[in-house]
């Protein structure tokens, strides 16, 4: 009884396996009793702390949307189904299949003519921000302009002058003092978007030293007659006359001729069939940059409704567009449509 408790004894008391004599000693001996009490209270506090923590965390994290066993049941059911159905391989295969189907569907829907047209119109709307070159008016093949001052450098970059119904003063990159002050103008549609540059120039020109371009007749660019751009006239663009257009080229020289890709046979009109009417309709067309036929005019008529049938058929033809320097350009072409009764 007089002997103090060893570490082992105290531990034994703590885990509830202490002998009676040890317990008695702990009660009587102040030193051993204090030690045992300290350990006991500490462990009690520890237990209290852990339990509080566990409860707090569990309460915070568990929101009973579904009872726990339902979760297990569904998990177990899924597990069983996966095992029965061949597991991950099958799931992966079906997933792949579904994704492929979804992608294919997206592509199919996206490549319909309507969708493409919609996308294109959306994109051309976006080009208004001048990230792109301004696109010429596609409805009219005419229009354009060009100028220059026979300088050696290409025209420098800049903004277009304002639009005016009639041009009096061609623009210059380096304005010269004039007796009669008329602001330079261009005969262009006012809808053309423009650079926010402080000097005049060609929006498609290059940054660099000031130059009016290599053309002639005033204006800016490689063309002549006072416009801006490589064309002829007082507008802007590669075409002729006022407005903004790409102009129409004629095959020959560096412009390649359009190549027929898809041909639609014309129908015979009822009248012509009855009259056993045969011959050739000659049409003048413009094959645009996209290989479509536009601006069909009859050069040699055949009559009896065959001209209309020929135009109807030719409008559906598709060409590989004529090329100039590697980029497609609208090209004027003549098409013969042969009507022959077999």
């Amino acid at each position: 009884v007089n002997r103090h408790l060893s570490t082992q004894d105290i531990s034994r008391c703590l885990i509830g396996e202490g002998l009676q004599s040890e317990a008695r000693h702990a009660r009587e001996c102040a030193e051993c009793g204090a030690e045992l009490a300290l350990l006991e209270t500490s462990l009690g506090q520890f237990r209290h702390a852990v339990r509080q923590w566990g409860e707090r965390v569990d309460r915070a994290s568990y929101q009973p949307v579904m009872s726990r066993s339902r979760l297990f049941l569904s998990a177990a059911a899924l597990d069983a189904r996966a095992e029965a159905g061949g597991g991950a391989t099958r799931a992966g295969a079906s997933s792949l299949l579904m994704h492929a189907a979804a992608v294919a569907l997206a592509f199919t829907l996206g490549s319909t003519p309507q969708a493409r047209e919609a996308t294109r119109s959306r994109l051309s709307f976006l080009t208004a921000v001048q990230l792109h070159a301004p696109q010429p008016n596609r409805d009219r093949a005419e229009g354009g302009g060009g100028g220059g001052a026979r300088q050696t450098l290409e025209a420098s970059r800049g903004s277009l002058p304002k639009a005016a119904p009639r041009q009096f003063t061609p623009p210059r990159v380096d304005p010269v003092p004039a007796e009669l002050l008329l602001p330079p103008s261009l005969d262009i549609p006012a809808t053309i978007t423009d650079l926010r540059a402080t000097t005049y120039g060609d929006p498609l020109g290059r940054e660099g030293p000031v130059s009016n371009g290599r053309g002639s007749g005033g204006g800016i660019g490689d063309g002549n007659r006072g416009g801006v751009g490589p064309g002829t006239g007082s507008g802007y663009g590669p075409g002729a006359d006022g407005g903004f257009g790409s102009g129409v080229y004629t095959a020959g020289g560096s412009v390649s001729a359009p190549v027929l890709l898809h041909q639609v046979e014309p129908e015979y009109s009822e009248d012509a069939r009855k009259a056993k009417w045969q011959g050739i309709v000659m049409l003048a067309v413009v094959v645009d940059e996209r290989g479509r036929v536009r601006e069909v005019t009859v050069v040699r008529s055949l009559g009896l409704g065959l001209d209309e049938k020929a135009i109807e058929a030719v409008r559906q033809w598709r060409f590989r567009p004529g090329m100039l320097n590697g980029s497609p350009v609208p090209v004027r072409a003549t098409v013969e449509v042969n009507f022959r009764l077999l």
Partner: protein
Amino acid sequence: MERTLTSELAPVADPVVADSCDNFDSLARIHWPRVFRFILASIRDKDAAENLTQDCFFRAYRARDQFRGASSIGTWLMRIAANLVRDHEASGRVNFWRRMRRTAVDAKEACDWIPDRKMSPEDAAVAHEQVEAIWSVVANLSERQRTVFLLRFVEDMELMEIAAVTGMKEGTVKVHLFRALRAVRAELGVTK
């Protein structure tokens, strides 16, 4: 010392794990907090503890046919939990940085508890220090010692139950407990 109502004394759980959903639900409701608390204290990582607890009950659910009623359900669940903790420790050993981070965060939270209201502020501060000291000891114990220590002093299990849970002999359990207690004594500054 207060005693908790362990599953040994609680008559709610049928020895045969019930097949039906409702019975398993009540079983989960009774045992969940305890299993979760044990795993949380063992690995001190909230998210992992939740996962492991879920895992524990899921395993129990799947293996319910193999439960022979040799021990109580609580012991059986604890045994699954202890195995899961051991596997987790073994797999997470390489994950050094994660362990560092979560011990830093969650350990701080673990010490953030509220002692009895009756305590004076001084006593509360002392109690806080003691708990912190024991936590640091627990963190440094080996996996077996910690499991045994937590089962005995937090879950209030009998030595026999601990032996059943850990699959050790009673003597081995005692040895582990003694070593853990010696470390606690050293940390608390009790010297003799």
